[in-house]
């Protein structure tokens, strides 16, 4: 039995934490929030450059990708820069300062100058074919449960375009996310347990939140995990929830253990010498298997191959070399693939399987595969299978994997080399003056508790409220609204209680800009909380913001209006000091000032 999640001495974990900033985009003046839908579309091709992908057969990949069309959806928060039709503008100073502030907060050594690099990425997620990224500081540490976990670098970079659709030779991206500033914090591989990984990620996230400039979007914080247990370094990218970090690590440890075992069996049997795919279409043409028939109907050929010594470890128990091969094939858009550990099955009869085995002169320990592909892809497929098995056989599992929603991961690409980086020549090195650095260092949040204390004091709100505001990234909004309407307690209440309540009630989000406009109106007109709440509810319930702003509904009743109500009520009798306010409120949906009502009631 294999032990999972133990404090295995060989296990080393490192994290890369990516935080989106709410400062507007990094190299243009576009906002980070997209307010409307798709404004237009365009298509591009990307041409892989030599160094982009380490070990993968570049020529093959190029051949494969040259016909891939990337479609980009233009959004309101994108301009010529996102379309790769204009050089980047000067770096967003607020974003850079936020990154530096986080660096100071994490004891990292801030550089006096920032050199922006291009990191080549040709999966279409960057219109330019590269991501702009720059180191802002090196080193640093964070203390978790008394243990210092080291940091290697803190970078500021552009977020990539959001993938919205994927076809065979076609992928569509939205430009809404492209160019949003990301702060990337990389730890050293100092983390030893899965829980520790979660704790480190949480603490770093919290500290960054204190800047008030972290976006509050569902994928605003994403983690990459570096994991090694003796079989090379595996990088799992794109874990969007804290809770999934440990699940991903558990799954990866399990995968590597069983892979290593399976490879052990393979080696013991004599290893793998490469397979040759043979066109078997004519021979199996009469099979009743739907996969076979569908393949042939769409013009595919049916290839078979012998996988020497791989019988019983492609898919049996926890052995899963078959899935590894399938992942490798998927890179070239090859989906259909059947192996003998699953056979008979897929409509193939025992006889048909045996015939293939006989044809390929298989022994018991060998496996066979069937694959339905166009003739043009045969060499690609054969190559991909052989390379994958060879790589695994070497017991060096180093590679980049993508996190799945369920905690597992899939093969993405080999670990990228440093070769895919070169300078962004359009942006001169950015010198940061000493004064700015000193100011940022001084102001940077040194710990959550310390920040909480000063925040609570500054705004005169409860510690509990302050904690929620800081921890949920509402600091910036809170400060902005409190400056508009100088009632921080009311603002806090609106932000933390009323708005979420209404959003639940109407199953609808309130746009922050709308909230800001409503608050400004109430502040300028000196209307009070009730008015704001009525306005917010009307907005969330679907009313047009302009209508709400102009509506009489949010204007408190004035003295003369109240007077006539009070007098009418008095005429109808049945009013007393105890119920007069409730009665007046019953008469109107508009805000009522109880003080004035009481005054009017008593003085007439």
């Amino acid at each position: 039995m294999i032990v999972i999640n133990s404090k295995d001495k060989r296990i080393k974990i490192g994290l890369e934490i990516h935080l989106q900033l709410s400062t507007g985009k990094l190299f243009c003046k576009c906002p980070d929030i997209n307010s409307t839908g798709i404004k237009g579309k365009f298509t591009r091709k990307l041409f892989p450059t030599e160094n982009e992908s380490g070990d993968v057969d570049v020529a093959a990949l190029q051949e494969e990708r040259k016909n891939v069309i990337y479609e980009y959806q233009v959004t309101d928060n994108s301009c010529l820069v996102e379309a790769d039709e204009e050089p980047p503008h000067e770096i967003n100073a607020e974003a850079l300062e936020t990154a530096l502030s986080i660096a100071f907060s994490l004891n990292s050594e801030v550089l006096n100058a920032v050199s922006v690099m291009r990191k080549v990425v040709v999966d279409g997620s960057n219109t330019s074919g590269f991501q702009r990224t720059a180191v802002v500081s090196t080193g640093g540490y964070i203390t978790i449960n008394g243990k210092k976990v080291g940091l290697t670098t803190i970078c500021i970079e552009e977020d990539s375009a959001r993938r919205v659709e994927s076809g065979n030779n076609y992928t569509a991206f939205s430009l809404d996310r492209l160019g949003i500033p990301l702060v990337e914090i990389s730890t050293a591989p100092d983390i030893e347990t899965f829980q520790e990984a979660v704790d480190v990620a949480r603490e770093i996230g919290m500290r960054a939140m204190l800047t008030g400039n972290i976006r509050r979007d569902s994928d605003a914080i994403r983690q990459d995990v570096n994991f090694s247990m003796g079989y090379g370094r595996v990088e799992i990218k794109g874990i969007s929830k804290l809770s999934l970090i440990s699940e991903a690590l558990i799954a990866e440890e399990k995968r590597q253990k069983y892979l290593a075992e399976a490879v052990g069996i393979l080696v013991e049997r004599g290893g793998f010498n490469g397979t040759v795919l043979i066109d078997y279409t004519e021979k199996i043409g009469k099979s009743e298997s739907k996969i076979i028939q569908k393949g042939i109907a769409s013009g595919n050929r049916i290839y078979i191959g012998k996988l020497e010594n791989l019988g019983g470890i492609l898919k049996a128990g926890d052995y899963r070399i078959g899935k590894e091969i399938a992942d490798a094939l998927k890179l070239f858009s090859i989906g259909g693939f059947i192996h003998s550990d699953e056979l008979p099955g897929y409509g193939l009869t025992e006889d048909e399987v045996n015939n293939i085995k006989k044809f390929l002169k298989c022994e018991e320990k060998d496996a066979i595969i069937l694959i339905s592909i166009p003739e043009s892809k045969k060499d690609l497929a054969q190559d991909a299978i052989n390379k994958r098995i060879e790589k695994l056989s070497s017991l060096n599992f180093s590679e980049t994997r993508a996190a799945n929603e369920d905690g597992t991961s899939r093969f993405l690409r080999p670990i990228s080399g440093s070769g895919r980086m070169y300078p962004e020549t359009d942006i001169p090195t950015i010198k940061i003056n000493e004064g700015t650095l000193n100011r940022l260092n001084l102001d940077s949040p040194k710990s959550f508790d310390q920040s909480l204390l000063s925040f609570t004091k500054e705004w005169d709100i409860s510690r509990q409220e302050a904690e929620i505001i800081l921890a949920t990234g509402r600091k910036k909004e809170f400060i902005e609204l409190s400056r508009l309407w100088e009632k921080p307690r009311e603002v806090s209440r609106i932000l933390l209680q009323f708005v979420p309540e209404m959003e639940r009630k109407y199953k609808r989000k309130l746009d922050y800009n709308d909230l800001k406009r409503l608050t400004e109106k109430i502040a300028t007109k000196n209307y009070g909380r009730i008015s704001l709440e009525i306005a917010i509810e009307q907005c969330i319930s679907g009313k047009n913001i302009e209508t709400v702003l102009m509506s009489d509904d949010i204007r408190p009743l004035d003295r003369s209006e109240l007077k006539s109500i009070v007098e009418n009520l008095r005429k109808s009798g049945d009013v007393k000091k105890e119920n007069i306010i409730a009665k007046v409120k019953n008469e109107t949906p508009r805000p009522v000032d109880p003080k004035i009502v009481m005054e009017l009631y008593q003085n007439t």
Partner: protein
Amino acid sequence: MVQTEFVRGTKLKITYNGNELDVTYISKEEGYLTVKLQNGYNITIPENKITVLKSSEPQPVKKKSITLKHGNGIPISLITTGGTIVSAIDYDTGAVHPSTDIRKIIDRYPYMEEKYAISVREFDNILSENMQPNMWIKLAAVIKEELSKSKGVLVSHGTDTMSYTASALAFMFEKLTGPVVMVGSQRSSDRPSSDSFGNMEGAMAFSSTNVGEICISMHSGTSDDSISLHRGTRTRKMHSTRRDAFRSVSGTPIAKFRNKNIEFLSEYKEKSDEILLTGKLEEEISMIYFHPGLKGEDIEKISEGKKAIIIMGSGLGHISQSLFPSVKKVIGTGTKIVMTTQCMSGIVDLNVYSTGRELKKLGVVSAENMLPEVALTKSMYLLGNYPHEDFEQMMKVNMRGEILEREFLGDCY
């Protein structure tokens, strides 16, 4: 003080901030050292913060020689002049520079190597803003030589002055035995998103048509799906950064390349049986952009020693009446004055307003609806090869499609 200046690419071991680092030296400027970390990032640090422990000279990079397969394809010559279209990047140090290694582009479309027998000739390696009229003359001679050996000629060129070069060549070549297609790019070929590849693929395709004109092949739109072939005498770079910067002003491109297919959109001059090149140009010609506040003396000063002046006037071809005495004086010295419009499109018509009629009387020559840049190269050509008294008449003759005989409303109105 320790040495902190090295050959680019030198491997260093340094201490910075208490750590020992293996880095690659990139550059030094104003007391700051830029080095490449092993993870590929460059960092820039004050030199006084680091100590260099060890250094080793970089290995010289072997220059790859250009070898293209020469099958039985259509013979095409490619003349490289520099510019963004072919640029090389040294991944070790990050330097990007113009290159003549067309291999990188051809590689993207392996089928091109089967289809064409491409011979590459390096003419120069400069940024196009440094291209001068005397180089156009040399380039024309090289084009003539190459075209006599092939079905068509491609000229890779920086985009900044590509349309000037194209129109100058267009006048010099009265007859061509095949297409001469100029091609450039707005994003350098070191980028995965470069438009070089698509522009070159289109240019190759255009180069084996029956067109007998000097043309420009660039993106039709921002998308990578269509490449336009423009007439050299009607094209202008209309945007400083977009892929679709080049437009056939007030007209339709000659053809579009899309899905490996050429569709002709308007009429063109077919290739001839012979090449006819008149390789002379009068270089003493300048352009003046009219604007409020322009002084008569400005015109007079810039006209000294000039054989012609191209004025980009306002509207239908007007300038302030305060400038008329200077115009008269300049014309009196024998300098031709040609009127174009700064309106980008539309005709010059000196009959409509009184100022125009007065300019006409002074001897100002109307450039009709020629682009100002084309009026410049045409003047260079005419004054280099024709009797000066024929100048005005020849300016009105549509020699190379530089005058649009009919302008249409276009599809969007």
